[in-house]
Protein backbone atom coordinates (compact mmCIF):
# COMPACT_ATOMS: atom_id res chain seq x y z
CA UNK A 1 0.00 0.00 0.00
CA UNK A 2 1.31 3.37 -0.96
CA UNK A 3 1.90 5.75 1.91
CA UNK A 4 1.14 9.41 1.46
CA UNK A 5 2.23 12.44 3.40
CA UNK A 6 0.00 15.48 3.39
CA UNK A 7 -0.25 18.69 5.34
CA UNK A 8 -3.54 19.99 6.60
CA UNK A 9 -4.89 22.91 8.54
CA UNK A 10 -7.41 21.75 11.10
CA UNK A 11 -9.86 24.08 12.71
CA UNK A 12 -11.96 22.80 15.50
CA UNK A 13 -14.81 24.28 17.49
CA UNK A 14 -14.58 24.90 21.22
CA UNK A 15 -16.42 21.70 22.16
CA UNK A 16 -13.99 19.40 20.33
CA UNK A 17 -11.12 20.50 22.49
CA UNK A 18 -11.67 17.66 24.93
CA UNK A 19 -11.89 14.88 22.34
CA UNK A 20 -8.81 12.71 21.83
CA UNK A 21 -8.96 13.21 18.07
CA UNK A 22 -5.34 12.54 17.38
CA UNK A 23 -5.48 9.34 19.40
CA UNK A 24 -8.25 8.07 17.16
CA UNK A 25 -6.42 9.11 14.00
CA UNK A 26 -3.45 7.05 15.10
CA UNK A 27 -5.29 4.09 16.61
CA UNK A 28 -8.28 3.67 14.30
CA UNK A 29 -6.82 4.89 11.01
CA UNK A 30 -3.14 4.07 11.37
CA UNK A 31 -2.12 7.64 10.53
CA UNK A 32 1.21 9.04 11.60
CA UNK A 33 0.89 12.56 12.92
CA UNK A 34 3.42 15.29 12.99
CA UNK A 35 2.27 18.51 14.62
CA UNK A 36 3.79 21.47 12.81
CA UNK A 37 1.92 24.14 14.59
CA UNK A 38 -0.78 24.37 17.19
CA UNK A 39 -2.83 27.20 18.56
CA UNK A 40 -5.27 25.70 20.98
CA UNK A 41 -6.82 27.39 23.96
CA UNK A 42 -9.13 25.55 26.32
CA UNK A 43 -12.75 26.38 25.66
CA UNK A 44 -11.99 28.33 22.51
CA UNK A 45 -11.72 27.48 18.86
CA UNK A 46 -8.32 26.15 17.85
CA UNK A 47 -6.13 25.60 14.83
CA UNK A 48 -3.62 22.92 14.17
CA UNK A 49 -1.26 22.37 11.30
CA UNK A 50 -0.67 18.66 10.92
CA UNK A 51 1.32 16.47 8.66
CA UNK A 52 -0.58 13.24 8.20
CA UNK A 53 1.03 10.16 6.80
CA UNK A 54 -0.91 7.05 5.88
CA UNK A 55 -2.41 5.11 3.01
CA UNK A 56 -4.77 7.00 0.72
CA UNK A 57 -7.76 5.14 2.14
CA UNK A 58 -6.76 5.70 5.75
CA UNK A 59 -6.14 9.40 5.14
CA UNK A 60 -9.53 9.73 3.50
CA UNK A 61 -11.31 7.93 6.31
CA UNK A 62 -9.35 9.80 8.98
CA UNK A 63 -10.30 13.13 7.47
CA UNK A 64 -13.93 12.05 7.15
CA UNK A 65 -13.81 11.15 10.86
CA UNK A 66 -12.46 14.59 11.73
CA UNK A 67 -15.15 16.28 9.69
CA UNK A 68 -17.88 14.21 11.35
CA UNK A 69 -16.64 15.71 14.57
CA UNK A 70 -16.99 19.28 13.27
CA UNK A 71 -13.29 19.69 12.64
CA UNK A 72 -12.60 21.31 9.28
CA UNK A 73 -9.63 19.94 7.46
CA UNK A 74 -8.11 21.80 4.54
CA UNK A 75 -4.93 21.14 2.60
CA UNK A 76 -2.22 23.52 3.78
CA UNK A 77 -1.41 24.98 0.39
CA UNK A 78 -4.86 26.56 0.22
CA UNK A 79 -3.99 28.52 3.33
CA UNK A 80 -0.79 30.03 2.01
CA UNK A 81 -1.00 32.58 -0.71
CA UNK A 82 1.89 34.23 -2.37
CA UNK A 83 1.30 36.97 -4.88
CA UNK A 84 3.41 35.42 -7.59
CA UNK A 85 2.54 38.08 -10.17
CA UNK A 86 4.10 40.86 -8.10
CA UNK A 87 7.14 38.87 -6.96
CA UNK A 88 10.44 40.39 -8.12
CA UNK A 89 12.47 37.29 -7.19
CA UNK A 90 14.71 39.28 -4.87
CA UNK A 91 15.27 36.25 -2.64
CA UNK A 92 14.73 37.95 0.72
CA UNK A 93 12.14 35.34 1.71
CA UNK A 94 14.46 32.44 0.86
CA UNK A 95 16.95 33.77 3.40
CA UNK A 96 14.66 32.88 6.30
CA UNK A 97 12.95 29.74 4.97
CA UNK A 98 15.12 27.01 6.43
CA UNK A 99 12.45 24.43 5.68
CA UNK A 100 13.42 24.90 2.02
CA UNK A 101 9.88 25.66 0.85
CA UNK A 102 11.07 28.91 -0.72
CA UNK A 103 14.07 28.59 -2.99
CA UNK A 104 15.58 30.32 -5.96
CA UNK A 105 15.61 28.32 -9.15
CA UNK A 106 19.34 27.94 -9.79
CA UNK A 107 19.05 28.51 -13.55
CA UNK A 108 16.49 31.27 -13.86
CA UNK A 109 16.93 32.69 -10.35
CA UNK A 110 13.20 32.99 -9.95
CA UNK A 111 11.42 32.18 -6.72
CA UNK A 112 10.00 28.68 -6.39
CA UNK A 113 7.53 27.84 -3.68
CA UNK A 114 6.91 24.28 -2.59
CA UNK A 115 4.01 24.35 -0.11
CA UNK A 116 4.59 20.68 0.75
CA UNK A 117 7.80 21.66 2.54
CA UNK A 118 6.32 24.60 4.42
CA UNK A 119 6.29 24.26 8.19
CA UNK A 120 4.22 27.43 8.67
CA UNK A 121 6.89 29.22 10.65
CA UNK A 122 5.67 32.48 9.06
CA UNK A 123 9.15 33.97 8.90
CA UNK A 124 8.66 34.77 5.22
CA UNK A 125 5.74 37.09 5.97
CA UNK A 126 7.81 39.95 7.43
CA UNK A 127 10.87 39.03 5.32
CA UNK A 128 9.27 39.93 2.00
CA UNK A 129 9.87 43.64 1.36
CA UNK A 130 6.82 43.66 -0.91
CA UNK A 131 4.57 41.95 1.64
CA UNK A 132 3.45 39.24 -0.77
CA UNK A 133 2.75 36.37 1.64
CA UNK A 134 -0.53 35.71 3.33
CA UNK A 135 -0.58 32.74 5.65
CA UNK A 136 -3.87 32.19 7.27
CA UNK A 137 -4.29 29.14 9.40
CA UNK A 138 -6.21 30.67 12.23
CA UNK A 139 -9.91 31.15 12.38
CA UNK A 140 -11.25 33.81 10.13
Amino acid at each position, binding site marked *: MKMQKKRYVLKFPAQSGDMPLSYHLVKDFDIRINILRAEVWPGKTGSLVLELEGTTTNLKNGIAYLEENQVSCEPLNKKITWDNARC*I*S*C*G*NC*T*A*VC*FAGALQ*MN*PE*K*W*ELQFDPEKCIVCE*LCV*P*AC*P*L*NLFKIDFRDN
Partner: protein
Amino acid sequence: MSIQKTYEEINEKIRRGEAVVLTAEEVSQMALTATPEEIAEKVDVVTTATFGAMCSSGAIVNFGHANPPIRMEKIRLNGVPAYEGLAAVDTYIGATACDPENPKYGGAHVIQDLVDGKDIELEAWGKGTDCYPRKHIKTIINKETVNEMILFNPRNAYQNYPVAVNSTSQMKYTYMGNLLPNMRNATYSTSGELSPLLNDPEMKTIGIGTRIFLGGTQGFVVWPGTQFNTLKPKNEFGVPVSNSATLAVMGNLKEMSSEFLQAAYYEKYGVSLFVGIGIPIPVLNADIAKNVSIRNEQIETTVCDYGVEGSPALGRVTYAELRSGEIEVQGKKIRTAPVSSLAKARKIAKILKQSILAGEFEISKPVQMFPTNTSLKSLKEVKGGEQS
Protein backbone atom coordinates in the same frame (compact mmCIF):
# COMPACT_ATOMS: atom_id res chain seq x y z
CA MET B 1 48.59 45.32 -33.67
CA SER B 2 46.31 45.33 -30.66
CA ILE B 3 42.75 46.47 -31.19
CA GLN B 4 41.77 50.02 -30.27
CA LYS B 5 38.26 51.20 -31.05
CA THR B 6 36.71 54.60 -30.46
CA TYR B 7 33.25 55.45 -29.14
CA GLU B 8 32.45 56.96 -32.54
CA GLU B 9 33.41 53.79 -34.40
CA ILE B 10 31.21 51.72 -32.13
CA ASN B 11 28.30 54.14 -32.51
CA GLU B 12 28.77 54.05 -36.29
CA LYS B 13 28.44 50.26 -36.13
CA ILE B 14 25.34 50.59 -33.92
CA ARG B 15 23.78 52.97 -36.48
CA ARG B 16 24.57 50.58 -39.33
CA GLY B 17 23.09 47.71 -37.34
CA GLU B 18 26.43 45.91 -37.35
CA ALA B 19 27.46 46.14 -33.71
CA VAL B 20 28.05 42.94 -31.77
CA VAL B 21 26.50 43.25 -28.34
CA LEU B 22 26.67 40.64 -25.58
CA THR B 23 25.50 40.65 -22.01
CA ALA B 24 28.19 40.45 -19.34
CA GLU B 25 27.18 36.86 -18.61
CA GLU B 26 27.47 35.93 -22.27
CA VAL B 27 30.90 37.49 -22.63
CA SER B 28 32.10 35.70 -19.49
CA GLN B 29 31.14 32.42 -21.14
CA MET B 30 32.85 33.44 -24.36
CA ALA B 31 36.01 34.21 -22.40
CA LEU B 32 36.30 30.56 -21.42
CA THR B 33 37.50 29.87 -24.95
CA ALA B 34 38.50 33.29 -26.37
CA THR B 35 41.37 35.59 -25.45
CA PRO B 36 40.80 39.25 -24.50
CA GLU B 37 42.26 40.25 -27.90
CA GLU B 38 39.79 38.04 -29.73
CA ILE B 39 36.94 39.40 -27.63
CA ALA B 40 38.01 43.00 -28.29
CA GLU B 41 38.00 42.22 -31.99
CA LYS B 42 34.62 40.49 -32.08
CA VAL B 43 32.55 42.28 -29.44
CA ASP B 44 31.65 45.97 -29.45
CA VAL B 45 29.48 46.45 -26.39
CA VAL B 46 28.81 44.46 -23.23
CA THR B 47 25.68 45.15 -21.21
CA THR B 48 25.69 44.97 -17.41
CA ALA B 49 22.82 45.37 -14.98
CA THR B 50 21.62 45.27 -11.43
CA PHE B 51 18.27 45.40 -9.66
CA GLY B 52 18.60 45.88 -5.94
CA ALA B 53 17.30 48.00 -3.11
CA MET B 54 19.05 51.35 -3.28
CA CYS B 55 18.13 53.47 -0.30
CA SER B 56 19.86 56.54 -1.64
CA SER B 57 17.16 57.29 -4.17
CA GLY B 58 14.66 60.06 -4.58
CA ALA B 59 12.78 62.30 -6.93
CA ILE B 60 12.70 65.99 -7.68
CA VAL B 61 9.19 67.19 -8.41
CA ASN B 62 7.89 70.57 -9.53
CA PHE B 63 4.20 70.96 -8.69
CA GLY B 64 3.42 74.15 -10.60
CA HIS B 65 1.96 77.29 -9.04
CA ALA B 66 -1.49 77.59 -7.56
CA ASN B 67 -3.55 80.77 -7.70
CA PRO B 68 -2.94 82.53 -5.38
CA PRO B 69 0.53 81.05 -5.09
CA ILE B 70 2.15 79.52 -2.03
CA ARG B 71 5.77 79.28 -0.93
CA MET B 72 5.73 75.70 0.35
CA GLU B 73 7.55 75.52 3.68
CA LYS B 74 6.20 72.18 4.82
CA ILE B 75 5.20 69.53 2.31
CA ARG B 76 3.43 66.17 2.67
CA LEU B 77 2.83 63.73 -0.21
CA ASN B 78 0.27 61.10 0.85
CA GLY B 79 1.37 62.04 4.36
CA VAL B 80 5.07 61.41 3.68
CA PRO B 81 7.33 64.39 4.42
CA ALA B 82 9.13 65.84 1.40
CA TYR B 83 11.91 68.40 1.41
CA GLU B 84 10.65 71.98 1.64
CA GLY B 85 13.80 74.01 1.06
CA LEU B 86 13.81 74.02 -2.75
CA ALA B 87 12.20 77.37 -3.67
CA ALA B 88 8.40 77.65 -3.73
CA VAL B 89 6.94 74.61 -5.50
CA ASP B 90 9.85 72.21 -6.02
CA THR B 91 10.58 69.34 -3.71
CA TYR B 92 12.85 66.35 -3.29
CA ILE B 93 11.15 63.25 -1.98
CA GLY B 94 13.61 60.76 -0.58
CA ALA B 95 12.88 57.04 -0.98
CA THR B 96 13.39 56.40 2.72
CA ALA B 97 11.24 59.31 3.95
CA CYS B 98 8.31 58.24 6.06
CA ASP B 99 5.64 59.34 8.43
CA PRO B 100 6.40 57.58 11.74
CA GLU B 101 2.65 57.00 12.14
CA ASN B 102 2.55 54.97 8.92
CA PRO B 103 6.07 53.58 8.48
CA LYS B 104 5.18 50.99 5.84
CA TYR B 105 4.34 53.62 3.22
CA GLY B 106 7.24 55.93 2.48
CA GLY B 107 8.93 58.04 -0.16
CA ALA B 108 9.63 55.00 -2.34
CA HIS B 109 5.92 54.20 -2.42
CA VAL B 110 5.10 57.80 -3.36
CA ILE B 111 7.65 57.55 -6.19
CA GLN B 112 6.20 54.26 -7.40
CA ASP B 113 2.65 55.62 -7.22
CA LEU B 114 3.72 58.67 -9.21
CA VAL B 115 5.31 56.43 -11.86
CA ASP B 116 2.16 54.32 -11.98
CA GLY B 117 0.09 57.44 -12.68
CA LYS B 118 -1.79 57.28 -9.39
CA ASP B 119 -3.18 60.34 -7.64
CA ILE B 120 -1.17 61.61 -4.69
CA GLU B 121 -2.48 63.96 -2.03
CA LEU B 122 -0.30 67.05 -1.75
CA GLU B 123 -0.65 69.14 1.35
CA ALA B 124 1.61 72.12 1.93
CA TRP B 125 1.90 75.03 4.30
CA GLY B 126 3.65 78.40 4.03
CA LYS B 127 3.84 81.48 6.21
CA GLY B 128 2.34 83.71 3.49
CA THR B 129 4.51 86.39 1.91
CA ASP B 130 3.81 89.42 -0.25
CA CYS B 131 4.47 87.50 -3.45
CA TYR B 132 3.21 84.13 -2.14
CA PRO B 133 0.19 85.06 -0.01
CA ARG B 134 -1.36 81.57 0.36
CA LYS B 135 -0.71 79.75 3.63
CA HIS B 136 -2.13 76.30 2.98
CA ILE B 137 -3.07 74.04 0.11
CA LYS B 138 -4.49 70.53 -0.02
CA THR B 139 -4.90 69.06 -3.47
CA ILE B 140 -4.28 66.08 -5.74
CA ILE B 141 -1.31 65.71 -8.04
CA ASN B 142 -0.20 62.99 -10.42
CA LYS B 143 2.25 62.31 -13.23
CA GLU B 144 0.16 64.39 -15.66
CA THR B 145 -0.38 67.42 -13.44
CA VAL B 146 3.19 68.03 -12.30
CA ASN B 147 5.69 69.84 -14.50
CA GLU B 148 8.78 67.74 -13.98
CA MET B 149 9.48 64.62 -12.03
CA ILE B 150 13.11 63.54 -12.11
CA LEU B 151 14.69 60.55 -10.43
CA PHE B 152 17.91 61.63 -8.77
CA ASN B 153 19.84 59.02 -6.83
CA PRO B 154 23.03 60.24 -5.15
CA ARG B 155 24.44 56.77 -4.41
CA ASN B 156 23.55 53.74 -6.50
CA ALA B 157 25.03 50.69 -8.19
CA TYR B 158 27.59 50.04 -5.45
CA GLN B 159 30.77 48.46 -6.73
CA ASN B 160 30.63 45.24 -4.76
CA TYR B 161 28.87 44.93 -1.44
CA PRO B 162 29.58 42.82 1.61
CA VAL B 163 27.80 39.61 2.49
CA ALA B 164 25.76 39.96 5.67
CA VAL B 165 25.66 37.46 8.52
CA ASN B 166 24.65 37.77 12.16
CA SER B 167 26.63 36.05 14.90
CA THR B 168 24.41 37.11 17.78
CA SER B 169 21.63 35.06 19.31
CA GLN B 170 18.97 37.57 18.21
CA MET B 171 17.37 37.97 14.79
CA LYS B 172 18.64 41.15 13.10
CA TYR B 173 16.37 43.11 10.80
CA THR B 174 18.49 44.88 8.18
CA TYR B 175 18.45 46.27 4.68
CA MET B 176 20.27 43.03 3.79
CA GLY B 177 17.17 41.13 4.82
CA ASN B 178 16.29 39.31 8.03
CA LEU B 179 19.46 37.78 9.42
CA LEU B 180 18.87 34.64 11.46
CA PRO B 181 20.76 34.25 14.74
CA ASN B 182 24.03 32.29 15.07
CA MET B 183 24.99 32.81 11.43
CA ARG B 184 22.23 30.56 10.14
CA ASN B 185 21.98 32.53 6.92
CA ALA B 186 24.05 34.88 4.80
CA THR B 187 22.69 37.39 2.32
CA TYR B 188 24.40 39.01 -0.65
CA SER B 189 23.33 41.77 -2.92
CA THR B 190 25.19 42.43 -6.18
CA SER B 191 24.48 40.71 -9.47
CA GLY B 192 28.04 39.32 -9.54
CA GLU B 193 29.49 38.97 -13.03
CA LEU B 194 26.56 40.97 -14.40
CA SER B 195 27.12 43.89 -12.03
CA PRO B 196 28.04 47.20 -13.73
CA LEU B 197 31.03 48.43 -11.73
CA LEU B 198 32.48 44.93 -11.37
CA ASN B 199 32.84 44.76 -15.15
CA ASP B 200 34.70 48.05 -15.37
CA PRO B 201 36.47 48.10 -12.00
CA GLU B 202 38.66 51.11 -12.75
CA MET B 203 35.85 52.93 -14.50
CA LYS B 204 37.69 53.37 -17.75
CA THR B 205 34.43 53.75 -19.67
CA ILE B 206 32.00 54.91 -17.00
CA GLY B 207 32.07 58.55 -15.92
CA ILE B 208 30.01 61.72 -15.82
CA GLY B 209 27.70 61.75 -18.82
CA THR B 210 27.50 57.99 -19.38
CA ARG B 211 24.11 57.10 -20.82
CA ILE B 212 22.53 54.23 -18.89
CA PHE B 213 19.33 52.25 -18.53
CA LEU B 214 17.56 53.67 -15.49
CA GLY B 215 14.21 52.47 -14.17
CA GLY B 216 12.96 51.48 -17.62
CA THR B 217 14.17 54.45 -19.64
CA GLN B 218 17.44 56.14 -20.57
CA GLY B 219 19.17 58.02 -17.81
CA PHE B 220 22.64 59.30 -17.08
CA VAL B 221 25.49 59.00 -14.67
CA VAL B 222 25.76 62.56 -13.38
CA TRP B 223 28.49 62.43 -10.76
CA PRO B 224 30.53 59.95 -8.74
CA GLY B 225 28.14 58.65 -6.10
CA THR B 226 28.46 59.63 -2.46
CA GLN B 227 30.80 57.46 -0.37
CA PHE B 228 32.81 56.93 -3.57
CA ASN B 229 35.92 55.11 -2.44
CA THR B 230 38.67 54.00 -4.80
CA LEU B 231 41.16 52.94 -2.17
CA LYS B 232 39.56 49.65 -1.09
CA PRO B 233 41.78 46.57 -1.44
CA LYS B 234 41.49 44.71 -4.74
CA ASN B 235 42.00 41.06 -5.52
CA GLU B 236 44.29 39.58 -8.19
CA PHE B 237 41.61 40.16 -10.84
CA GLY B 238 41.47 43.87 -10.09
CA VAL B 239 38.08 43.74 -8.35
CA PRO B 240 37.64 45.62 -5.05
CA VAL B 241 36.72 43.06 -2.39
CA SER B 242 34.26 45.26 -0.52
CA ASN B 243 31.99 48.21 -1.21
CA SER B 244 33.95 50.92 -3.03
CA ALA B 245 32.81 53.11 -5.92
CA THR B 246 29.22 54.31 -6.41
CA LEU B 247 27.28 56.28 -9.00
CA ALA B 248 24.99 59.28 -8.83
CA VAL B 249 22.34 58.80 -11.51
CA MET B 250 19.49 60.81 -12.91
CA GLY B 251 16.64 60.31 -15.37
CA ASN B 252 13.14 61.35 -16.35
CA LEU B 253 10.85 59.67 -13.84
CA LYS B 254 7.82 60.29 -16.07
CA GLU B 255 9.22 57.81 -18.59
CA MET B 256 10.09 55.14 -16.04
CA SER B 257 8.11 52.04 -15.20
CA SER B 258 7.41 50.33 -11.91
CA GLU B 259 8.65 47.13 -13.50
CA PHE B 260 12.12 48.54 -12.82
CA LEU B 261 11.38 50.76 -9.83
CA GLN B 262 9.88 48.92 -6.91
CA ALA B 263 9.06 50.30 -3.48
CA ALA B 264 9.97 48.04 -0.58
CA TYR B 265 9.46 47.94 3.16
CA TYR B 266 11.93 46.10 5.33
CA GLU B 267 10.61 44.93 8.67
CA LYS B 268 12.01 46.99 11.56
CA TYR B 269 14.28 48.88 9.19
CA GLY B 270 12.17 51.01 6.91
CA VAL B 271 11.43 51.92 3.34
CA SER B 272 13.72 51.56 0.35
CA LEU B 273 13.47 51.48 -3.42
CA PHE B 274 14.57 48.71 -5.77
CA VAL B 275 16.15 50.40 -8.77
CA GLY B 276 16.97 48.80 -12.11
CA ILE B 277 20.20 50.06 -13.62
CA GLY B 278 21.89 48.85 -16.79
CA ILE B 279 25.20 50.13 -18.07
CA PRO B 280 26.68 49.41 -21.49
CA ILE B 281 30.43 48.98 -21.58
CA PRO B 282 32.11 49.68 -24.92
CA VAL B 283 34.83 47.13 -25.59
CA LEU B 284 37.44 49.64 -26.73
CA ASN B 285 40.47 47.39 -26.31
CA ALA B 286 41.75 44.09 -24.92
CA ASP B 287 42.14 45.57 -21.46
CA ILE B 288 38.45 46.35 -21.25
CA ALA B 289 37.65 42.99 -22.87
CA LYS B 290 39.52 41.32 -20.02
CA ASN B 291 37.58 43.28 -17.41
CA VAL B 292 34.17 42.43 -18.85
CA SER B 293 35.17 38.75 -18.98
CA ILE B 294 35.23 38.52 -15.18
CA ARG B 295 33.42 35.47 -13.82
CA ASN B 296 31.66 34.81 -10.53
CA GLU B 297 34.51 32.63 -9.31
CA GLN B 298 36.88 35.59 -9.71
CA ILE B 299 34.70 38.11 -7.90
CA GLU B 300 35.31 38.08 -4.18
CA THR B 301 33.53 39.97 -1.47
CA THR B 302 33.85 40.36 2.28
CA VAL B 303 31.58 38.65 4.78
CA CYS B 304 30.58 41.10 7.51
CA ASP B 305 28.93 40.46 10.83
CA TYR B 306 25.90 42.75 10.88
CA GLY B 307 25.07 41.63 14.41
CA VAL B 308 28.13 43.33 15.90
CA GLU B 309 28.86 47.06 16.08
CA GLY B 310 31.03 48.19 13.19
CA SER B 311 30.14 45.07 11.13
CA PRO B 312 33.57 43.42 11.43
CA ALA B 313 34.86 41.35 8.51
CA LEU B 314 34.85 37.58 9.02
CA GLY B 315 36.26 36.36 5.73
CA ARG B 316 36.06 36.45 1.97
CA VAL B 317 33.96 34.45 -0.46
CA THR B 318 33.43 34.39 -4.22
CA TYR B 319 30.20 34.95 -6.07
CA ALA B 320 30.40 31.40 -7.39
CA GLU B 321 30.30 30.17 -3.79
CA LEU B 322 27.48 32.55 -2.89
CA ARG B 323 25.40 31.36 -5.83
CA SER B 324 26.00 27.70 -4.93
CA GLY B 325 23.71 28.21 -1.94
CA GLU B 326 26.33 27.69 0.75
CA ILE B 327 29.51 29.41 1.90
CA GLU B 328 32.04 28.53 4.53
CA VAL B 329 33.00 31.21 7.01
CA GLN B 330 35.47 30.50 9.77
CA GLY B 331 34.87 26.79 9.31
CA LYS B 332 31.11 27.11 9.53
CA LYS B 333 28.86 26.29 6.59
CA ILE B 334 26.20 28.92 6.06
CA ARG B 335 23.19 28.91 3.75
CA THR B 336 23.14 31.88 1.35
CA ALA B 337 20.34 33.89 -0.19
CA PRO B 338 20.31 36.83 -2.57
CA VAL B 339 18.54 40.05 -1.66
CA SER B 340 18.61 41.61 -5.11
CA SER B 341 16.95 40.18 -8.17
CA LEU B 342 19.22 38.47 -10.66
CA ALA B 343 16.20 37.60 -12.81
CA LYS B 344 15.40 41.31 -13.20
CA ALA B 345 19.05 42.24 -13.71
CA ARG B 346 19.23 39.70 -16.54
CA LYS B 347 16.10 41.14 -18.04
CA ILE B 348 17.61 44.64 -17.97
CA ALA B 349 20.90 43.47 -19.53
CA LYS B 350 18.88 41.83 -22.28
CA ILE B 351 16.64 44.84 -22.90
CA LEU B 352 19.70 47.08 -23.04
CA LYS B 353 21.37 44.71 -25.48
CA GLN B 354 18.30 44.71 -27.69
CA SER B 355 17.90 48.48 -27.65
CA ILE B 356 21.55 48.88 -28.68
CA LEU B 357 21.11 46.32 -31.46
CA ALA B 358 17.97 48.16 -32.58
CA GLY B 359 19.95 51.40 -32.82
CA GLU B 360 17.88 53.05 -30.06
CA PHE B 361 20.67 53.39 -27.54
CA GLU B 362 24.05 54.85 -28.37
CA ILE B 363 27.17 54.64 -26.28
CA SER B 364 28.34 57.89 -24.73
CA LYS B 365 31.88 58.90 -24.00
CA PRO B 366 32.06 60.34 -20.48
CA VAL B 367 32.60 64.10 -20.42
CA GLN B 368 34.65 63.73 -17.25
CA MET B 369 36.23 60.65 -15.72
CA PHE B 370 35.93 59.85 -12.02
CA PRO B 371 38.54 60.64 -9.39
CA THR B 372 40.99 57.81 -8.74
CA ASN B 373 42.18 58.50 -5.22
CA THR B 374 39.25 59.11 -2.95
CA SER B 375 38.75 57.53 0.43
CA LEU B 376 36.07 57.85 3.08
CA LYS B 377 35.86 59.90 6.22
CA SER B 378 33.75 58.77 9.10
CA LEU B 379 31.75 61.03 11.34
CA LYS B 380 33.55 61.98 14.52
CA GLU B 381 31.60 62.91 17.56
CA VAL B 382 32.59 66.12 19.28
CA LYS B 383 31.25 66.32 22.80
CA GLY B 384 30.31 69.51 24.58
CA GLY B 385 32.24 71.70 22.19
CA GLU B 386 35.55 70.05 23.12
CA GLN B 387 37.86 69.15 20.30
CA SER B 388 39.87 66.02 20.69
